[in-house]
């Protein structure tokens, strides 16, 4: 084994500080009063306003309509994140299943067409998507928030590669055992894909959780506001001599960080297995 050098540790410590200090700063600053933050800048030490800030952020009714709480936004974000992740997994698994196991014309071309959409970010098709949703009357609904973004080239690609690595004999054994296409999918492929699903769940949950532009366009009703929008709207009140509630923005940011962290921590082991384990 190589000898551990102090320099290596120094580099590591610097890296950890670089990544952690902003998070600590946000956490600590959220426990101070907005005036102090405004005049003294950010804090690295805890203040005494923490409990009040978090209670206020979570329960205080705000917005124009006066009944959107932080909890509500948290829930909306969760619905977005989970709906995204689950929807994408279901959709891309079925697409990959069709592409790998069913012989139909143009399957390869179709796959590459799906794959090239990876190159196009959401922003490119955001106006047409909005138009479609608006025509369908799905503005200000969870359906409208989630469905248009479900098609996932990444997910389809991952599952396609995974299904291709499943030995053909398994399918043949299942056919002899009397399992039709649907049964084979549910009884064999889905259980085999568990780690893969965990990996995609993390990626897609965070992707959905962090969506900002799409919810901004899709929802005008404050009941559908997500946390990301909430943070933004706190900072928008800078009119006249009013100081924005920095502490609340930080508190929301900290809260917004927790669910993705939880998801990563819970699924981490399966995640790493899913991305690295190729042999079955």
């Amino acid at each position, binding site marked *: 084994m190589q000898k551990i050098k102090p320099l290596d540790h120094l580099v590591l410590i610097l890296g950890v500080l670089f990544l952690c200090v902003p998070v600590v700063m946000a956490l600590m600053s959220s426990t101070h009063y907005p005036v102090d933050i405004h005049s003294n800048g950010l804090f690295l030490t805890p203040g005494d306003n923490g409990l009040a800030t978090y209670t206020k952020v979570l329960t205080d009714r705000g917005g124009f309509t006066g009944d959107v709480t932080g909890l509500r936004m948290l829930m909306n974000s969760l619905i977005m994140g989970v709906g995204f992740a689950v929807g994408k997994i279901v959709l891309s698994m079925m697409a990959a299943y069709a592409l790998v196991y069913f012989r139909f014309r143009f399957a390869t071309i179709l796959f590459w067409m799906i794959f090239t959409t990876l190159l196009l970010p959401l922003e490119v098709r955001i106006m047409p998507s909005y138009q479609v949703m608006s025509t369908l009357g799905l503005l200000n609904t969870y359906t409208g928030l989630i469905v248009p973004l479900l098609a996932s080239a990444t997910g389809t690609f991952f599952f396609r590669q995974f299904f291709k690595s499943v*030995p053909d*004999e*398994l399918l*043949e*054994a*299942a*056919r*002899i*055992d*009397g*399992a039709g296409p649907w*049964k084979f999918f549910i*009884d*064999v492929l889905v*259980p*085999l894909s*568990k780690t893969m699903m965990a990996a995609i769940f993390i990626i897609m949950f965070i992707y959905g959780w962090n969506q900002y532009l799409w919810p901004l366009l899709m929802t005008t009703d404050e009941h559908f506001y997500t946390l990301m929008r909430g943070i933004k709207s706190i900072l928008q009140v800078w009119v006249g001599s009013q100081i924005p509630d920095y502490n609340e923005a930080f508190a929301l940011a900290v809260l917004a960080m927790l669910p993705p962290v939880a998801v990563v921590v819970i699924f981490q082991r399966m995640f790493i297995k899913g991305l690295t384990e190729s042999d*079955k």
Partner: protein
Amino acid sequence: MAGLSLQGVGKTYSGNVDAVTGVEIEIADGEFIVLVGPSGCGKSTLLRMVAGLETVTRGEIRIGDRVVNRLDPADRDIAMVFQNYALYPHMSVRDNMAYGLKNRGESRAVIDERVAEAARMLELGPYLDRKPRALSGGQRQRVAMGRAIVRQPAAFLFDEPLSNLDAKLRVSMRGEIRRLQRRLGTTSLYVTHDQLEAMTLADRLVVLNGGRVEQIGAPLEVYRSPASTFVAGFIGSPAMNLLDARVEGGRVVLEDQAIGGAELPEGPVTLGLRPEDLRLVQAGGLALRLDYVEELGAQRILHGFVGGQPLSVAEAGAAPLSDVVRVAVREDRLHLFETRSGHRIERAGLAAMEPAE
């Protein structure tokens, strides 16, 4: 249980590649048939056509009295054992065996009983709740067989089931498969490229070459009178020596030495000599210039040249050898083949021999 009948079965892949042509086999109920041949000879394709995993291009496959050409694999009443076992990795041994029955809608009680019975037969009892990955290769293979047994099918299909096992295990599993098949009396079709496996397991062998049947017969029959030079070279280990010889004046002449009579028209002929039918003598016979010797323990195999042609001799002795040894031919064990077509020339053509020593 039922017999199996293949009539004029052929398979053509896209691009006009004939994988299998005109295969005719009648298999009696309870018979153990081994399809044997080198890789690419179409034996697996044939098996997969019987299983329903490949479509049949020509001909008719019957299981019992039913033509199954267009039936789904699940409806053919067969069970298959794969080379890589193809066990469902996420299911326990018990669920692996029960899966097919569950899909057929058998009752819980029937499933439990059959799984227990198969587990007892294959000594898998202690492993029923394990996942396949926690089993050794031999155990996995037994689970794969258990999965076939519980279905109580009309026929077992084996696709090189022992190829992934080590040599020692292969021998014991071979015996186990044979015993099991005898006991259950289920018609079996077994594919292998290993001629030893084929010889030891089969009631009848089907030797395939290039998608065609070269010979069908009991193992000893195939060994004693191979129908062609291909079969002669493939069945038997070490392989039969095939030498260019001539028929001259009613005698088979090899490298200017007459070694037996044959009432055949004059001309070239292919002479087949099994290494185990040759023996060393002090004088007379053929002069074999030794090249190298393989020691196998119970016997040794001498490789050398007669004239310019390679010849091997299997021999049980351990005496030191000189560079040139004399080899005598057992004349009642000569095999003659037409040089051009490779077909066997029947023994009736061989006249009574004079000793060549």
